[in-house]
């Protein structure tokens, strides 16, 4: 077999292609144009198709990118809106809980009267023994006005300004409230201790048990009598003439939402 060089093959194919093209140039199609032009069109058609599709693809990609950008922005706005709605939902839930608490307070508390002022707790610092409450309208509450909740005694007003009022909780280091047992046989003085309470001046021979709820006696001239103030959690005898008694506030100061301010209560007025 004669060795056929690559150049010979290529040259032959080139010549044949030229001859075929020349023959196609002589043949006319139905519309009178040379057949080779229709071949060219057939060759270029995929290219133009690809180019057209490429253009459409680029357009689609561009539109997709724009849509994606809009979707991202819209998604971000929706997230913000969702966060706002969640925050509003939390606030509404909190308001609803406060309303329920207020209703319980109105139903259960004998001190709820026309002169009592409901206030919403907006800030409290339990270790420091302070709380800030806010009333629905601007009202001036006298200093030392008691603040109670459905659970018991909360503290007293130390400052009032417009709708904002600051309370000194009974757990405050400087707070004190006169208390007694429900049967009024044992009396003492609840002292704040920065989150905990202690009951002072209870004689060693006094009959007092743990879990006893001490009520305010009104002997301090600040708090009205009969309000649950503290619950005894620890009793210890020492060499001192008085028992060493530990207690916790009767009211749940951690979760209290609504308090009742009693500006018109006085020892004399009752």
């Amino acid at each position, binding site marked *: *077999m*004669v060795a*056929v060089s690559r150049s*010979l093959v290529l*040259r*032959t194919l080139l*010549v*044949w292609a030229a*001859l*075929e*093209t*020349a*023959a*196609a140039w*002589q*043949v006319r199609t139905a519309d009178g144009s040379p*057949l080779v032009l229709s*071949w060219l069109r057939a060759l270029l058609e995929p290219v133009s198709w690809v180019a057209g599709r490429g253009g459409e693809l680029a357009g689609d990609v561009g539109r997709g990118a724009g849509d994606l950008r809009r979707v991202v922005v819209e998604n971000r706005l929706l997230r913000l809106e969702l966060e706002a709605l969640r925050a509003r939902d939390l606030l509404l839930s909190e308001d609803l809980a406060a309303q329920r608490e207020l209703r319980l307070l109105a139903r259960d508390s004998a001190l709820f009267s026309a002169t009592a002022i409901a206030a919403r707790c907006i800030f409290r610092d339990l270790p420091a023994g302070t709380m800030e409450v806010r009333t629905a309208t601007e009202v001036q509450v006298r200093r030392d006005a008691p603040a109670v909740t459905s659970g018991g005694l909360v503290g007293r007003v130390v400052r009032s300004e417009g709708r904002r009022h600051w309370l000194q909780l009974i757990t405050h280091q400087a707070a004190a409230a006169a208390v007694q047992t429900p049967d009024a046989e044992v009396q003492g003085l609840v002292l704040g201790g920065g989150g905990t309470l202690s009951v002072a001046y209870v004689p060693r021979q006094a009959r007092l048990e743990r879990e006893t709820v001490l009520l305010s006696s009104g002997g301090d001239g600040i708090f009205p009598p009969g309000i649950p103030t503290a619950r005894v959690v620890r009793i210890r005898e020492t060499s001192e003439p008085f028992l060493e008694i530990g207690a916790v506030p009767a009211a749940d100061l951690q979760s209290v939402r609504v308090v009742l301010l009693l500006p018109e209560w006085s020892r004399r007025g009752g």
Partner: protein
Amino acid sequence: MHARWILPVLLTLAAQRLLGLPGLPAWAADPLLPAVWIVAAALRSRERPWPLAALLIGLALDIVQEPVVGPGGIAWSAAALALNGLAGVVADRSAKAWAGFGATAGALVTLVHHLAVLPLGLGSSLSAAQVLRTAVFTGAWCGLVGLVFALDLPQRWRTLRARRLR
């Protein structure tokens, strides 16, 4: 191709044209008379150049009897290339080889020409019988020429004259 071969080639082309004249038998146009030139080039030439002569013969045949010029060049050059390759593996140079090469050339030219015309949409038709007839007649024609070469008539003529002179 040497200039001295141009006239004989033209004569075979003219003869090929004449074989297609009305009145002659239908099979008269089947043999490809110029095939003898590419067979001769394959069997007698020592060189194996690119078959430009076959290309020209094919184009000339296109001019003479085809509607378009070009496919003939392809067909004849392809046949010439095939014969050149075949001549490299076949050692026989007898009349039978001429006939075989001629038949091959006829079949190849017919087939490749048909293939080359197909994309042009000219409605070319081809049948196995046509290919066979062309191969047989072309082979016979080339075998006849090969036989003439084998007989070496000029040598016989010179021998005959020398005998008479004695």
